[in-house]
C-alpha cells in the first residue's frame, strides 16, 4: 500500500500544488514567516505590565499618560516557520474505501512538500496512542524523497489518544509553529484536551478531519455484532432504520461539535471524507484559511 501511495501522478500533483501555493502566497519572501514569537524586532506586537527589571525604554509612556498605568511594548521577532504535520495512524484510519490513512498521508505529504519547497522547517509524525517516531524538523526540497519514502511505509494500527500524542509533542518541541493535525478524531477521550494543549503551548493548530465515506451512515441492516477496530469491543446490535438514524445524528454531532470547537478557538478546521481527492483538500486548505500564509 505504501509504495502505491505516492506514485508518479501524485508527484506531478505536488508540483502543481507548489505552483499554486506560490501564486496564492505571491509577494511573500522566502522564509519570511511571522510567528507570534515576541522578540527584538521593530514591529509592535503587544503590551504587558511593567515588572521590576524591564528595560525602561520599552515603557509605553503614551499609554501611561492616558491610563496612568505602566505597560511595556513588545515587538515581533522574524523567524523561520516550523510546520509540524501530525497524522493519525491509529487502526480506525485504516477503514474506509479508500482508506482514511491514504488520504491523510497524501494530504500530509503535499503540505510537507509545499513547506519544504518554501524552505520552511517541516516535521512529520504519526500519532496514535502517543507520538510515534517520524521525521524530525528539516528544511529543503532534498528532504522530500526521504519524507515520501517514510510516509509510504506507515501502516495504521493501535488505538487513538490525541491528548497523549499532543502532550508528547509539546514536550518534545519548544520551537513554535503550525501544527497540522490530520485525523478522524475518533478518540474516546475526545479532542479538546489535545487541541487546547497545543494552543496553550503557543502552537497554531490546524485541524483536518478525514472520515470514511460510509462513516456517516454505514450500509448495515439486521442483526450484527459490531467490533471496535481499535479496542476490539463487541456489541450486538440490531440495525434498523431508527438505529441508523440515531447513529447518523451522533456522527453528525461529532463533526459539528469539532467544527464549533475549532471555530470558537479560531482553529482552522477542514472536514472531508476519504473519497475526496487529496489535491482538492489541500487547495481548499490553501484558499480557505490562509494555511501556510
Amino acid at each position, binding site marked *: 500500500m505504501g509504495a502505491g501511495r505516492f506514485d508518479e501522478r501524485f508527484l506531478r500533483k505536488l508540483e502543481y500544488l507548489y505552483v499554486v501555493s506560490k501564486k496564492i502566497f505571491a509577494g511573500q519572501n522566502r522564509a519570511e514567516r511571522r510567528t507570534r514569537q515576541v522578540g527584538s524586532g521593530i514591529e509592535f506586537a503587544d503590551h504587558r505590565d511593567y515588572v521590576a527589571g524591564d528595560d525602561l525604554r520599552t515603557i509605553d509612556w503614551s499609554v501611561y499618560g492616558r491610563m496612568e498605568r505602566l505597560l511595556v511594548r513588545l515587538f515581533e521577532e522574524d523567524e523561520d516557520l516550523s510546520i509540524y504535520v501530525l497524522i493519525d495512524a491509529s487502526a480506525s484510519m485504516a*477503514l474506509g474505501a479508500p482508506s482514511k490513512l491514504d488520504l491523510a498521508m497524501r494530504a500530509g505529504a503535499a503540505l510537507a512538500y509545499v513547506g519544504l519547497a518554501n524552505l520552511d522547517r517541516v516535521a512529520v509524525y504519526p500519532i496514535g496512542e502517543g507520538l510515534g517516531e517520524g521525521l524530525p524538523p528539516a528544511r529543503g526540497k532534498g528532504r522530500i524523497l526521504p519524507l515520501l519514502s517514510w510516509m509510504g511505509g506507515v501502516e495504521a494500527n493501535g488505538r487513538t489518544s490525541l491528548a497523549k500524542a499532543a502532550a508528547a509533542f509539546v514536550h518534545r518541541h519548544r520551537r513554535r509553529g503550525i501544527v497540522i493535525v490530520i485525523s478522524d478524531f475518533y478518540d474516546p477521550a475526545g479532542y479538546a484536551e489535545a487541541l487546547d494543549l497545543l494552543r496553550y503551548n503557543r502552537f497554531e493548530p490546524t485541524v483536518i478531519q478525514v472520515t470514511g465515506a460510509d462513516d456517516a451512515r454505514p450500509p448495515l441492516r439486521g442483526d*450484527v455484532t459490531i467490533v471496535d477496530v481499535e479496542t476490539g469491543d*463487541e*456489541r450486538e446490535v440490531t440495525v434498523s432504520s431508527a438505529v441508523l438514524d440515531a447513529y447518523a445524528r451522533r456522527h453528525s454531532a461529532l463533526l459539528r461539535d469539532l467544527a464549533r470547537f475549532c471555530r470558537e478557538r479560531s482553529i482552522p478546521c477542514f472536514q472531508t471524507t476519504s473519497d475526496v481527492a487529496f489535491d482538492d483538500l489541500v487547495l481548499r486548505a490553501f484558499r480557505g484559511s490562509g494555511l501556510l500564509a
Partner: protein
Amino acid sequence: MTIFGLTLAGLPAGAAAAIALVGAAALTGLYLLKLRRRRVVVPFAPLWAAALGETQSERLSRRLRRWLSLALQMLFGALVLLAAVDPRPAEADRAGRSVLILIDRSASMSATDEPGSRLGSARRVARGIVAGLGPADRAMVATFASGVAAETGFEADVRSLEGAIDEVTGTEEPADLPRALGFAAAALRGRPHPTLILVSDGAYGANARAQAPAQALSGVDVRFAPVGTRGDNVAIISFAARRDPADRGSVQASVVVQSFRDGPCEVALEIGTVADGGAQEGPGSEGAAAEIVVVERARLGLAPGERKTHVLHEVAAPGARLVARLVRASGGGGGGDDLAVDDRTYAVVPALPRRRVLRVGGGNLFLEGALLSLGGQVVVRRVSTAAAESTRARWPDYDAVIFDGVAPAPAPTAGRFLYFDPAGAGSPFPARGALRDPVVSDTQKLHPLVKHVALADLNVREAQRLTIEPGDTAVASSFGSPLIVARVRPGLRVAALAFDPRHSDLPMRTAFPLLLANAVEWLASAGVDTDAADVATGGVSLRTGRTFRVGDADIPVARVGFHRVATAGGAAGAPAAVVAANLSDPVESDTHPSAALTLAGRAWPRPPDAGPGGPRQDLWAVALIAAVALSLFEWWSYHRRWTV
C-alpha cells in the same frame, strides 16, 4: 367428540394436539436459538453505543416485537391446524342427512316443455338441492330409466356432486320406477337420517305406482321435485310388419298413433322404406347413410287421448326396413309435440325363410302345383316311391317330408312329416276301415294347420278311418272320424290327411296351397323358439329398455332404431339379422307431468330449500383464508421492520 359446540370432521383431536405441541416447541426453539450474527468492524464503537442509548426506550418494544413475530407464527400454525381438523357445528353434524338424489332420465324427460328439456330442468333442480345441503349432509346422485346407475357415492364434496349431475344424459328407455325405488331403499338402508329426493316428471303408470316398494321406504324421508309443465305429445305407440297369412309373399304393416294432448290435433303420418345403408343402424343413420323413400302418407285427425290404427297392405318386399314418422303435429292445446323420440318408429319386414321339402311319391300335378305356388318359400326335392327308403337317413335334414300316398315302414319316430292318405304298415295312423263321402263336421279353427283354411264344404269321395292315439289332435273330422290329424311328440311332428286330395275337390280350392303352406310352416317350426326364429328373420320389434334373449345371448336395447343382430362365433360372412327397436310405451309417451306424487297412499312432499343446521359452513376454508392473510401480513410487517 364435541369441543365448544364443534365436532372435528378432519384430523383427529389427538393428532392435532400432538402436532400443535410439537409445532409450538419447534417454533419457540427456533426463536430462542441464537443465530450467528454477522461481525462488522467499525471505526468508532462509542458512536453506536450512543445511538443505541438514544433508542434505549425502544429495546423493550423491540423485544416485544420479537415475541409478536413468534405469536404471529404460532397463530398461523394454529389456523392451519384448525383447517386440518375441519370443525363443524355439532348441532348440524348430529342432524346430518344421507340424501339420495334420484334423477329420472327416461325417454319422457327429453320432452322440450322446459328450457333445454325436462332433463336440463332436472339437473338444475338437483344442483339446487346440492347447494342446499347442510354442513353435515352426505349426498349421492343416482339416475334411472329402465335400469339404475349410481353416479356417485355418499359424499359431501359439492363440486363432485355437481359434476356428476352435469354429466347426466337422457335415454330412450321407459322408466322402471319400482326398480329405481328398490335401489334407493337398498342404498339408504342403515344410513343416518335417510332422505330420498326423486327428481322427475312423474309420468308413471298405475302399475308402476302400485308396485313401488312402499314398505322398504317406510323409514325414509321421501320427497318429490317435479319438472315439466305440460303434456303436449303425439306418439306412435306401435309399428309392426307381418307376412300376410293368406299370402306369405305379401306384407302388412300396422301403425298405431295416439294423441296425449289436451286438445284435438292433426298429424301427418309418413311411412317409408329405408335402403340398407351399411353398418350404421339406428335413427342417426337414416338421414346420413340411407334415404327414406316414402311409400305412404296419411293425415290423421286425433281427439284428445284418441288412438288410431293405420294399416298398410302389401307395403314392401320381405326383408325391407320400414320407418314411420309423425310430421308436424298441429292443433289446440299448445306448442305441438314435445317428445321427439316417439315420433319415429321402426319395423323390419320379416324375411321369408326357405323351407326344404322332400316329396316322396309318384307324380301328382296338384301337389306339385301347390308347392310351386309357394314360390321361393320352399325348395322341393322329389323322390320316387321306390327310392323313399334310401332317403330315410336324410329325413331329419328337411323341414318337411311329404309322403304322397306312401308310408314307408317303419314309421319314423323323429322328424317332420306330412302324409297324404297314409296306408300300410308304415302309416303312423293305422286305418280301421274306409269312410265314404265324409263331410267335415268339426274343425279346430285355431290350429295352425287350418288357419285361414275353410273346409266346411269340402267334398271328399273317400277317406280312411284313421286311428289316433292320445295326444294326437283331430284338426278336422267327420263326425268323430279324423280327416286331418296332427301329432306332436318330442322330436316328431306329423300331420296327415286321411284322404287323397285327388279324391276330393281340395286341390281345386285355394285352401289346398294354404293348407300345404300351413303344414310346411307348422312342421318347420317344430322345436324352434318362435321369437328366435323371428329375430333370425328380422321380424321382431323390440322395446327399448329391455333385454332380449336370442340363443345364448342377452341383447340389451337402449336406443330406438334398427339393430343388427349377429351370432358370435358364427361363420364368416354369415348374414346378421336386423331388428327394430322402438319406445312403444304409451305410459312414457303420456308426458303429462305430475305436480305431486303419491305412492302406496303416501304423499311425497316437495324438498326443503336448505338442510337442517343452516347452510353449509366450511369453517376450515375460513381458517385457511385467515392463515394466508396472516402470512401475508407477517411478510409485509417483516419488511416494514415491525416485527424485527
